């Protein structure tokens, strides 16, 4: 294990940005571990959420933004609900995802592709077109067997529409994404 130089590796700007974007005071965390204790996803994380909080406090930008955990948080709000210091931990996890995405980290690529495909579907149609979303996800990831076992279960139920539900405000929706992309590009 590397020896951590606390002064040299402390990224003050990172700490300040996490606090500003999340509206949370990360110094409130006293490392009780309640978030990790309740998090249903701890088993899948590479870094448990309480340690992510600690790494944020310690200004360890790279360690935080390159971890897998921030992509596997489902925002189930168990950490936020139970934090004894009323920290909105789930919101911090969200903000870390935003930062990771902006800085080019995507350690759970499939998750990112799934979310991107979802939003792409919203952008195109105004409402999510589930079959189209799945097709795009499979195309982008090359995981052709994704949920193939579910096809015989769901297809006979006639629930999965094969045509998108168009809305009148389709162009309006596309503009939301367009403005967002422009703003992201500027910042």
């Amino acid at each position: 294990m590397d020896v951590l130089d606390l002064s040299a590796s402390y990224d003050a700007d990172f700490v300040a940005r996490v606090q500003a974007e999340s509206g949370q005071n990360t110094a409130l965390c006293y490392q009780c571990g309640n978030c990790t204790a309740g998090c249903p996803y701890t088993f899948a994380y590479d870094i448990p959420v309480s340690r992510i909080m600690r790494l944020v406090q310690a200004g360890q930008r790279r360690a935080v933004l390159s971890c897998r955990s921030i992509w596997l948080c489902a925002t189930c709000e168990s950490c936020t609900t139970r934090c004894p210091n009323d920290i909105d931990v789930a919101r911090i996890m969200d903000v870390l995802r935003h930062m990771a995405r902006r800085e080019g980290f995507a350690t759970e690529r499939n998750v990112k592709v799934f979310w991107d495909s979802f939003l792409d579907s919203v952008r195109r149609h105004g409402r999510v077109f589930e079959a189209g979303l799945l097709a795009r996800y499979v195309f982008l990831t090359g995981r052709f067997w994704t949920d193939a076992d579910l096809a015989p279960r769901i297809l006979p139920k006639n629930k999965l529409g094969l045509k998108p539900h168009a809305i009148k405000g389709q162009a309006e929706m596309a503009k939301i994404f367009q403005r967002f992309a422009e703003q992201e590009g500027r910042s």
Partner: protein
Amino acid sequence: MKIGVFVCHCGSNIEGTVDTAAVARASLEFPEVAHAEDVMYSCSEPGQEAIIEAVRSKGLDGVVVASCTPRMHEPTFRRAVERAGLNRYMLEMANIREHVSWIGKNREANTNKSADLVRIAVEKLRRNRPLTPKRFDITRRVLVIGGGVAGIQAALDCADGGMEVVLVEKTSSIGGKMAKLDKTFPTVDCSSCILGPKMVDVAQHPNITLYACAEVEEIGGYVGNFTVKVRRKATYVDWVKCTGCGACMEKCPSKKSHDSFNEGLGGAPAINIPFPQAIPKKAVIDPAFCRQFVKGKCGVCAKICPTKAIDYSMRDEVVEEKVGAIVAATGFDLFDHSKYGEYGGGRYPDVITSLQYERMLSASGPTGGHVKRPSDGREPRSVVFIQCVGSRDKSVDRPYCSGFCCMYTAKQAILTKDHIPDSQSTVFYMDIRSPGKLYDEFTRRAMEEYGARYVRGRVAMITPKGRKLLVRGADTLLGTQVEVEADLVVLAVGAEAAKGSPHLAEKLRISYDKYGFFMESHPKLRPVETNTAGVYLAGCAQGPKDIPSSVGQGSAAASKVLGLFSKAQLESDPQISQVNLARCVGCAKCESTCPFGAIHMIDFRGQPKAEVIETVCQGCGICAVTCPQGAVQLEHFTDNQILAEVDALCRF
């Protein structure tokens, strides 16, 4: 008049943001100021000597000290000017620390504001006149409220010091929370064995009057002369006749009264003596469960009682006691863990509180000292302790550390191993707080010798799993989520202010904090005094503390009482209201607004006039602002003085 002004640096506390030398120079321009200087620490011996020296050499007849709050050092400087040969009320203070240097950073603005405050003080001092306190007699009796270990200690120490003590206890026996404990840390000695004799001493002490099942209803008067009304609640048993034989308890057909001594673990008979060592050992009927009261017929206890002590028609009685001092030792209550829905919110029978567990461990408890699961009576093998339930948790408005839970949890883990040798205890903790003598060694022993597994992390949830409970927590040192199956979960519930504390504080005219704990006069230097003269604090009423600290504070409060009573007479503050009889029209408005009953109407040459009872007046000034004629004036806060102060401020 020749006035001297002393501007204190208070080290860098004031000098850091106030140019004290400049304030002193400016003061020389104020009317009648004959001397001004800045001093490093005016409260220090050389500082006080400088004041005395200046008074004597310059012939000053009044002094302004510009330093800290008068709450801090007014008595100090009054003594100093008295030593210099002046009347001690020829002193004014300008608070340039709390009101200036500590709250602003701009040195120039601070210096100007300090000079303004000195100017105001000078104008007030110019209108002061020497005052002489009156002396009055005191009642050498003390009221102790609360019969837990702190109150017991205070009562015994006062009684041993020769004072008469009135001890008022809300429940039917003294002993408090300590009487419910099985063992005490860090010595693991039997709680009732060490407390029992003290309780007996209370019962037998000729100087102590004990009112159990009683509450303080009303408090009037002032230091040295309080009048207290005590409501003795109807027990429906004549305690003079009751011998505490317990025959009534055995025969009582209703066994479902809330067993508060056993923390609700068992049921109690509707007529009950809470525990064998109870003091007084007298029965009390709970009318909510007594069939005689609920159904109108039963009378079994009345028939069985060998001394005919049962009296269903008994009513509350209010007695009046005169005392000179009061010790508030009303203890604490436990945090209500039903606020933690993730721990079952009180729905899982095998999730219990630490005090319930204590009753289970106690040989005199509802299980006879056998640890049994409330759900099925089985002996647990895996016991999980969860600390900080209602402590250090902002989300339930309990951000403070209750202080003693780490220690009692270690004790309970040790006792668990003693009771059930093949059991395994697991303790979830955040930090171990064990700063007392032999305390840390004790928690180490729980781990090293008794094999308690300590896990550093909080528990997020408890869920039933078959007959067991699944405890899911974190081990932050391992950096992972952990799960433990438990047969019994013990919640180390924190301490909170006793219910009704704010209400009692208002009766006592003392302050309480936002959590309901009584405020001491100074957190370090006056830990048992309150800001109301003659009212003292002991035990957890002031904040969570363990038995040694509670006993220590009980003794400390007693020493304060004995010190107060050692004086032949007390002096009253002469800064009180005076009635100008020529102006008074006898409207009696002042009499009706006075919160202390310090004004009464007299007949003066056939006309009604107000008169102030000097020893009762507290100098609050309500009468002075009420009087439509300006006939009532508060000494040293006269209308003229206040106007002069305002004038001094507004002129610049």
